């Protein structure tokens, strides 16, 4: 029955993809299916949130009805035939031996991660106390009737975190008919598989296939991803959503297609629904697009407006029902930013960037960061649009994180908590950087 949960997510996303995309031949077949996954989380999660708020318990009938209604609407709005899904991919030459090797590495790593994620029950404090707890509440209760948001002793679970990811867990358990925090974890490695597919096809549009495959192989074998793919938190889903939205945004920057910007907008709405860090992603990507493509004002308005429209139900719910939501932010305000600490913060970052590569971090990240920085600094593409947009988006996201750390009351230091936080931020920031990495490597390959 877990298969039912996965298929409904895919079909819900397929309805959205069907409505938005004008030219399906721009996407490979596997890529179209991959985009349906993050779109499906949004297309299923938001209506379920609204129905739970109205007092309806999650049920299989509810989920299937949502999918049916969405498809009826999609057929009314969309002007495509069923051929939409079976448009043939471009003919490509067969894999070379090295590409076969890389393909086997990718499949092997994904299979190993899948096995690991399915075998390991929930084992992370935040995964248990924040995300799985919310999912259990959504499974057993409704948003209308639960007292969860009024219980201040449960503030450790962050009442103000959006509910899209817990809703997916709850949906998986609803389809299974019982609370099963082992089988529901299948959602985590699936996010990684989908991200690998989207990254591969995004890279293939701009670099040779070997480099695209090599980039994906490096991504799926990154030890730092292991913990977060199995721990049950919302960082890997946010990495997927941020990556998917940036790949669509990048297509829009290249070609200016309306369907690309609409896909980006819907996916950025998903980022807002996943974690508070999704707000940083949204602002960074919107600002980046605004700085370099300000002449496409109408499309930028969609990019800014659609995510906020999608997020509005949660903002209204937060204001009405989460009485202590502001406690999360009581120290966060523009006036609380300790600007005088900025030089110390920059020195701290510089010092620790070098010292950071101790044996622990080398084991987690290998040589990725130094190679990425070196490749980017020595390549010409970063000085051209739209590639420099990736650098700007990275700078804006990183800058926002530095500012957020300047407004907490604690002194700036590197403890275990900060390290894990930095790891999580790095995974999300990396999502578009993989594309830049592939381009830089391809450029260097061309120059030798």
């Amino acid at each position: 029955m877990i298969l039912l949960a996965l298929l409904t997510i895919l079909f819900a996303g397929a309805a959205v993809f069907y409505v938005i995309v004008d030219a399906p031949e721009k996407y490979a077949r596997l890529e179209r299916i991959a985009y349906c996954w993050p779109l499906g989380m949004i297309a299923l999660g938001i209506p379920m949130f609204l129905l739970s708020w109205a007092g309806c318990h999650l049920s299989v009938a509810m989920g299937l009805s949502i999918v049916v209604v969405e498809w009826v609407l999609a057929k009314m709005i969309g002007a495509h035939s069923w051929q939409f899904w079976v448009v043939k991919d471009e003919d490509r030459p067969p894999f070379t031996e090295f590409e076969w090797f890389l393909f086997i590495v990718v499949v092997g790593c994904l299979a190993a991660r899948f096995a690991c994620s399915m075998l390991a029950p929930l084992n992370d404090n935040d995964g248990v106390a924040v995300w799985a707890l919310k999912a259990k509440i959504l499974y057993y209760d409704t948003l209308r009737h639960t007292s969860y948001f009024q219980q201040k002793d449960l503030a450790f679970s962050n009442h103000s975190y959006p509910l899209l990811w817990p809703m997916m867990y709850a949906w998986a358990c609803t389809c299974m008919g019982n609370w099963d925090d082992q089988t529901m974890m299948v959602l985590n490695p699936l996010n990684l598989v989908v991200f690998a597919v989207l990254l591969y096809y995004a890279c293939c549009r701009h670099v040779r296939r070997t480099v695209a495959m090599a980039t994906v192989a490096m991504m799926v074998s990154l030890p730092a991803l292991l913990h977060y793919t199995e721990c049950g938190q919302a960082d890997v889903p946010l990495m997927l959503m941020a990556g998917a939205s940036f790949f669509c945004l990048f297509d829009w920057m290249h070609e200016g297609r309306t369907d690309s910007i609409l896909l980006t907008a819907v996916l950025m709405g998903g980022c807002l629904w996943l974690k508070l860090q999704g707000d940083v992603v949204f602002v960074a990507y919107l600002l980046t697009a605004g700085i370099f493509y300000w002449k496409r004002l109408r499309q930028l308005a969609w990019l800014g407006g659609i995510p906020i429209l999608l997020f509005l139900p949660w903002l209204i719910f937060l204001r009405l029902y989460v009485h202590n939501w502001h406690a999360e932010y009581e120290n966060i305000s523009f006036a609380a930013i300790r600007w005088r600490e900025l030089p110390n913060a920059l020195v701290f970052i510089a010092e620790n960037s070098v010292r950071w590569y101790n044996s622990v971090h080398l084991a987690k990240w290998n040589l990725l960061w130094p190679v990425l920085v070196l490749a980017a600094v020595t390549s010409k593409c970063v000085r051209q649009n739209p590639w420099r947009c990736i650098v700007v988006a990275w700078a804006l996201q990183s800058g926002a994180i530095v500012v957020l750390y300047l407004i907490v009351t604690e002194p700036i230091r590197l403890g275990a908590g900060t390290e894990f936080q930095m790891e999580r931020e790095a995974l999300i920031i990396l999502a578009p950087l993989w594309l830049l990495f592939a381009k830089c490597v391809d450029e260097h390959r061309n120059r030798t």
Partner: protein
Amino acid sequence: MMRIILLLVLLQLSLFWVGLAETTTRARLLWGKSVEERRAVVNNIGAALTRIASHFPMDAKIYLIHPQGFLYMNAVYYFYPRFLTVTMTNRRYNTVQEFAEWNEIPSVDWLLANGFTHVLSFQNGQVRGWRVEPGLELK
């Protein structure tokens, strides 16, 4: 310079076995065990709390005394949908400081009036539980 960068990229690519080895080692460690055995390996607190929670009926309303932050946060999840709380005053308990200041031992009359069925304590690593009945004494 370009050749050096490409060599470094190839070196990074060749390190795929680090991630693969780590993942397969972890999978081998957990293979062939039951869910509870695997939970005991990766999250022994969760395994213990699951076992303790199974002794209470699903509609139990439990008051936890002498709470420790980490245990309480995990217990709320593992006990749910059983109601578990540590406060009579709907006070916020989130930081180490706030848990250190905890001082809300309820009276039996209050527990009975508010429909609590059990009291639980994990103090000093010992699990102790009491059914809420008239005459119950709590310290």
